[in-house]
Each structure stands twice: as C-alpha cells, then as structure tokens.
C-alpha cells in the first residue's frame, strides 16, 4: 500500500529525515516510536502533503502511484488520512458543514453521487457514537473551544467519517487521560479491517496496550534504527530510548 524509499526531507535547509524507509501492507498496523524531535511528525506531514517541507531525495509510492506528485486533497480523496497532533481551530466553520463538504468532495472525485442531508446526518450520528461524542456537531465550529481530549476524539471521528485506506495518527494519544485514550483506541480498533492500514506515531508505549501493532519501528535521528514486533514496544518501555541509541551506535545529538 505504502512504500517509502530512501526519503530525505529538510526544512529551511535543515535535514530532518535521512534515508528513511518503510513498507506498509494492506491490513497492517505500524507503530513508529521515538524520542521527541527525531522526525516523527515530519514524516506524517510529508505523507499528508504539507508543503512546508522539501523532499530532497527518495520516493513515496501509494497504491502504485507517486504520492509526492499529488496535492494534499487528492491524497485525502485517495484514502490517506492524517490525524493531527495539534488539530487546528477554525472558528465559523461548523463541523457538519466541513465534514459534509469533505465527504462530498471525495465522493465526487470517486464518481459517486453526493450524500443527501438525511444520509449525511445518519452517518454522522452513527460515527459520533463510535467515538463517544455527544455534542451536536451541527452548530459547533471545527475544534473551536474543544478540550484537548475532544480535539483528539474529533480527529478519530473525522477518520470514521472519511473511511480512509491509510490512516496516520500523529501523537493521537498525547495529552489524553486514560478514559479518553480508551475511547480513541476503541474507535481505531473498530475501524480496523483487512483492507486498511494504520501508522501510529507515538512517544509512549501505553497506546499500544490498546491498539496492538503488527510492527514497531524506532525512529531516531531521522531514520528507522530498529524494527520489530509488538514486543519491541515493551522493551522500549523497560529500557528507554538510551538502549536504542547505544545499539544503533548513534551519537547523542545535542
């Protein structure tokens, strides 16, 4: 589904990802872990198409297409979803209006009829339950006045609405209490299928207690320094990142 090869990414001349490689197949859940500042969020942004970053080398192939050639909205319509670490507040745009526009843009792209108002509302009610959202989203502005937990739940809600093939969840667990994290994990698990894949970007192992990954990768200093099964996450939890650093022979970056 997703194949990243020798990816080198920089911002304002500063290299963030160096020779990054990753293969994600249909139905797989990959966790990418690592200390702060190693390029995890950059990776997520580059896959989603944020133009702040320069891709200097390498390639990203998604479903057989050159992903780097696509505009962010085309990526979205082709099934890529980024759950933002810091969801943006957009006062004045209602969640319902936003989601309806997004869904219908995607449907148009796929050659499908737009959803009627009733169909849309039904879908929205259904998906709200999945992530335990009770407020009326029809008259709430996108993320405006949402608590940290609500914002993250809202990301999963949007994911549930858009039914992506590949979801990248960037630190979706950060700042969540244990109950909110369970809700988020429940949502993600419900949406898991043999047809779609997930990349979980996280700093802590605790999310992986609830969403069990097939693979765990450790990102350090712009590249994956260690990959393994879910047990790698437990090892990291026990030994910390220092262990990886030594094993990978990476110099402490100051």
């Amino acid at each position, binding site marked *: 589904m997703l194949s990243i090869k020798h990816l080198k990414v920089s911002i304002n001349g500063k290299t963030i990802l160096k020779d990054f490689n990753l293969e994600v197949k249909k139905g797989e859940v990959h966790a990418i872990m690592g200390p702060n500042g190693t390029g995890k969020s950059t990776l997520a942004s580059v896959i989603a198409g944020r133009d702040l970053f320069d891709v200097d080398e390498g390639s990203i192939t998604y479903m057989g297409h050159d992903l780097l050639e696509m505009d962010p*909205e085309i990526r979205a319509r082709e099934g890529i979803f980024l759950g933002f670490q810091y969801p*943006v507040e*957009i*006062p004045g745009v209602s969640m319902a209006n*936003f989601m309806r526009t997004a869904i219908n843009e995607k449907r148009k792209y796929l050659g499908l009829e737009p959803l009627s108002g009733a169909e849309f509302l039904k879908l929205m009610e259904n998906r709200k339950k999945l992530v335990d959202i009770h407020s009326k989203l029809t008259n709430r502005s996108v993320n405006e006045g949402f608590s940290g937990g609500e914002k993250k739940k809202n990301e999963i809600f949007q994911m549930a609405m*858009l039914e992506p093939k590949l979801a990248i969840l960037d630190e979706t667990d950060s700042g969540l209490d244990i109950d909110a994290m369970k809700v988020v994990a429940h949502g993600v698990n419900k949406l898991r299928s043999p047809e779609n894949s997930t990349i979980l970007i996280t700093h802590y192992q605790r999310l992986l207690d609830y969403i069990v990954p097939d693979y765990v990768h450790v990102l350090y200093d712009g590249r994956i320094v260690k990959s393994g099964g879910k047990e790698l996450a437990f090892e990291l939890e026990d030994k910390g990142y220092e262990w990886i650093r030594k094993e990978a022979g990476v110099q402490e970056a100051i």
Partner: protein
Amino acid sequence: MQNITENISTEQRMIDLFKGNIDLIRGNEPESISLLRQKAIETVKTKGFPDITTENWRFTDLDPLLRTVYDFDFTNQSRPFDIEKIFSCDVYDLDTFSVTLLNGWFVYQNAPLTTLKNGTIIGSLSKAMEVYPELVSKYLGKIAPLEQPGLTALNTAFFQDGLFIYVPEDVKVDKPIQLINIVNSERPVMFQPRHLIIQEKDSQLTLVHCDHSLTHNISFTNSVSEAFLAKNAELDFYKIQNKGHNSAVINSSFFSQKQHSKLTSSALTLNGGFTKNIVYSLLEEPECNATHNGLYLVDSNQHVDNQLEVDHAAPNCTSEQLYKGILDDEATAVFSGKIMVRRDAQKTLAYQNNKNILLTDDAKANTQPQLEIYADDVKCSHGATVGQLDQEAMFYLRSRGLNERAARQLLMYAFAAEVVRRISIEPLKERIDHLVEKRLKGELSICDQCMLHCNTKEPTVFNIDVSKL
C-alpha cells in the same frame, strides 16, 4: 428637477439651490426645523466640506463626488405603487413590517403614517413633521452635529423625507421594521434622506435598513439617521448595502443612549461603489451597552470607509466594535475607530477590533484605531490586522479532501461568519449568511432582487476571486 452649472464652487451651488427652493424644501414643517436648516446652510457656507486634509477623510476623497453635478428632486416624484412588482428583498423569509424609500422619498403604500395597535408610529418623516411637530422638533438635529464641516450639515439643510419611527414606553415591537432604500434614476441624482428613531423607556425595536440601487447610473446618497434610546430601551439596527459601482453613499448614523439601554448596530457592505459609513455612538448615561459590528466584502475599484466614534460619557458602560473586511482587486477600505472615554466614565469596558484580508497586492486597507481616555479606572483594548488566510487551517481543510478553492472559500466565509453570527434574529442571520456565501462564490449580483429592465442586459456580478490568495 434642477439643472445647475459647474463653474461655481460646490458650496455656492448648494447655497443657491437651497435659496432657490426654500419653500419646497420647508414644506409644512415646524419653525424650529426651518431654523435648524438655516444654521446648517450657514455651516455649509462658512465651513464647507471636508477634504483629504481633514483627519477622518484622509483616505476618502470626496472631491470627485462633490464636483459632479447632480439633479435634486424637491418634490416627491414617486407614485403609489406595488413595490413587490419591481423589487423583492432577499431577506424575504423575514416577517417584517416593511417600508420603502424611492429616491429618498417615502413610498406611500397605505398611508404616509401608520400607527400600530401598540401605539408605535411608522412612516414618512415629512408627514411626521406636519402631524407631530413637537415630537420631531424635540429630537431632530439633537445629536447630529450641525457645526462641523461635512455632509450632516448639508443633509440637515436639504432633507425633506425619510423614515420616522416612534416607539412608546414599554412597547416591544415584535416584528422587525424593514426599510428598503431604493435608488432608481436615469439621471445623476443626489438624495438626502433623513431618518429619525425615537424609543421611549423600556421599548424594543429591530430595524433592518437595506440600501439597493436598481440602476447603473450615477447617484449620491447622503443620508443621516438619528436614534434616541431612552432608559432601558433596546435597539437592534442592521444596515445592509448592496449597491452598484456608480453609486456613492455617505451614511451617517447618530445614536444617543440613556441609562441601561442597549444598542446593537451591524453594517454589512456587500457591494457599493463608494461607501462611507459614519457612526457616532454616545453613551450618555450609566450602564449602557453599545455593540457595533461591521463586515465589508469589496472588489474591483470599490471603496468602503467605516468611521466610528464610541463616546463614553458616563460610568459603567460597555462597548465593542468588531469590523472585518475582505478586499479583492484594487478595492480599498478604511477603518477609523475611536473610543473616547470621558473623565466621568469610570469602569468603562471598551473593545475594538478591525481585521482585514487582502487578496491582491493592489487592494489596500488603512486602519486607524484611536483611543482617547480621560478616566483612570477603565479597561480598553484595540487591535487591527491586515493579512492573509491562515495557512495551517488551509492545510487542515485540504488534508480532508477540500480543494484549494473550496478551502479558501470556507475560510473566508468563516472569517466573515464571526460578524454574521452575532446577528440575533435567526431568519435574518440565515439570509445574511446565505448572501455572504453567495457573495464569496461570486454569485451575488446587484440585480439579483430586481425585476426592472434597466439599461444593461447583463447583471453586474461582483466576484471576489479566491484563486488570487
């Protein structure tokens, strides 16, 4: 109809016109009003008109407007007619009591003055001066300044008709009153409508004032409104402007508030060749609240100027100004907002904010926030921004599948929505919301509501071009 020659100064032309038509202008008005006119024409004579060296007119040049020679209609040319045959208002879902001014003159649909069951009087100011001379004399000209150079003096000298509303004590007018101000003339014309709103204690009123032009010809409207809010009165005042390229509007509104009264005024400029809205809001007694909202969406070479002064003269009052604008092409906007806090106005809370989005390098916004504070225990703030759309938000929307154009439209709409959602009447809010959306999509034309066959075949469509962002 008067034709005038151009080789004399504007001031002199106006004075000559005034002298030559004094009897027509006066009509059956009380003596006190005629005295006001004399004073006003004196001001025109001695102080003339503001120019770009006048502080509040630095970025709005009146000169080309004043040099144009206009016709004046000193008699009511309008015949009773069914307004719905030529014009349907876009805010039609709204159940309103509606009145119409055509070329500055009140259109008598039923009677010149209507008294509602609750005692509210609505109708022609010209007729009101005849029927209620004392009431009109008591208020008219009491807050609109006569001594300052400018168009208020000119209006005071020349006005003949306009809207008159009187709301008695304790009366809550449940239906909004809608004033539709239509300009339709084959010749370059100048109009000087005058509106007077008097609200007694504990009364409530909603007034929706819509300015439309049904013509592409040159016109200059110089309107003045005065509103008086007695103790505990509430006024919700909306001004919606959707006019053609060749229309010029100077619109001055003066509000005076007594104790614990509440004013909300919203100026929404969707189109207008040349528009200047002047607001003076006096908080005369304690515990008043005044909110002034504004939204302007302009393109091509349109010019919009909002000049506000909120004058805190008494303690424990609150005021807020929020003005937002989107400018395309070579459009220009001016905002000059002043908060005056007088010595006795302790515990004042006053806020002001002006935000502009420029879509091109040629669009220009001049914003001048001014604070003048003479009391020491007050909380005041002001802010102004001129910029572009938030790139983080753009990416967020695009990452959900919205293309660039749709994302921009949504963000511009959201930018405008901050003002629109302050509208308290639900059907009006929905309609305005819809108008703003149409406007931003380039689907709103000034001919939208018009069924007249004017001299242009194609409707003028204004388009804020989002691809330029």
